[in-house]
């Protein structure tokens, strides 16, 4: 439906604020991804499995690869955060982690603007994402 007579459409305040938060997060996450990969690739931060050895294992399934390279699954990878490979992995995990925080921010923004239905939808989405992030489904 097109409407020639109507004034310029205005974006909802919630959506405009969410877009601003999203833009800041994307810039930060992309910078973190680039820096972490440089640390990993240059081996400035050493890894238990050197980057040059990865191609000899990447034909294995994720479970076999984890067993062969002593990569910890679930949230146990955090205990290996001192390694270059884990820092690069953490930078990749930052993208879904940031989206959980942004979804929670969306619930708060909708609550602030008294848009109850969407506040609830965002809140339920946070729970769904937290269940996925918890690792319960990975066991």
């Amino acid at each position, binding site marked *: *439906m*097109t*409407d*020639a007579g*109507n*004034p*310029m*459409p205005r*974006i*909802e305040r919630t*959506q*405009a604020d*969410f*877009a601003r938060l*999203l*833009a800041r997060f*994307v810039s930060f996450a*992309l910078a973190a991804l*680039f820096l*972490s*990969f440089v640390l990993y*690739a240059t081996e400035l931060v050493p890894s238990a499995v050197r*980057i040059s050895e*990865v*191609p*000899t294992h*990447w*034909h*294995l*399934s*994720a*479970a076999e*690869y*984890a067993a062969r390279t002593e990569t910890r*699954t*679930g*949230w146990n*990878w955090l205990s290996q955060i001192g390694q270059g*490979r884990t820092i*690069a*992995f953490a930078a*990749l*995990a930052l*993208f*879904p982690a940031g*989206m*959980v925080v942004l979804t929670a921010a*969306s619930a708060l923004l909708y609550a602030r603007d008294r848009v109850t*239905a*969407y506040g609830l*939808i965002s809140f339920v*989405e946070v729970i*769904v*994402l937290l*269940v*996925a*992030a918890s*690792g319960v*489904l*990975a066991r």
Partner: protein
Amino acid sequence: MLIVTLAAPCLAQDAQAATAPQALIQASLPWWGWALLLFGFTVALGVVAVVGGVGGGVLFVPIVSAVFPFHFDFVRGAGLMVALCGALSAGPILLRTGLASMRLGWPMALFGSIGSIAGAFLGLSLPTGLVEGLLGLAIMGIVVLMLFSSRSDFPVVERVDPVARLLGIRGSYYDDSLGRPVSWQAHRTPVALLSYVAIGMIGGMFGLGAGWANVPALNLLLGAPLKVAVATSGFIMTINSTSAAWVYVNRAAILPLIAVPSVAGMMIGTRIGAQLLPRAKARSIRWIVIGLMTIAGLRSLLVGVTEVFS
């Protein structure tokens, strides 16, 4: 080398037999050579994806799994990161201009993310051969959808359904090509919500971005204008890919050496593609994309059938 890679899964009947060709392939390049090759390949894939009118994610998984010697788990993990990062980088501008609608996106994303988690869980639990065979079927289905689905720039919505009315699923945006504002509203919301469970499941299971299904669902089913459907599809993908990505993160099924060059290559490729779009022969390239997807889909189907019945 790429031909050897393509043929390796079909030549090998089991994991033991696969070891010899795999070792040969791995030794043929140093790690940085693989990273550069993958980066260059995904730049090209990104260009073709934009000009061909499909999402990068849907091309990434079937084609990279056919051409590179990575395990299917890592290709799907990287595919999800490609879809997530691509959708995230375009998200802010599409939300700010009002082309993407959070009111349209959130309800669909909620149902889609539930399906996406279930799909990711299933995809990592079922035998690889079976999942690859199912991917082949899914890709062939997407090719059929690309060939036969019609799109409507401004669908007519005569009666808004009660759910859409309750949630206030409506909006307006300024259409540059028309030079005036466009208002829209939605219908058939309950059916669309259920369809999103299935769309999310396919996306999560195979690590595909779901733009190929989002756009027809939002445009033809819900009645959103085509531009709103395309833009909101990206927003929904950020949520659905996030939920599936967690399952892959928890299984350590994302390798930085594969995922980072892929994400970087696809982001650069899609930007180049967007620049080339006005001058490119989009119709011819769309046929090339359909051809590539058909070959990759048939290959996945062949690998699946070979592994399941061997």
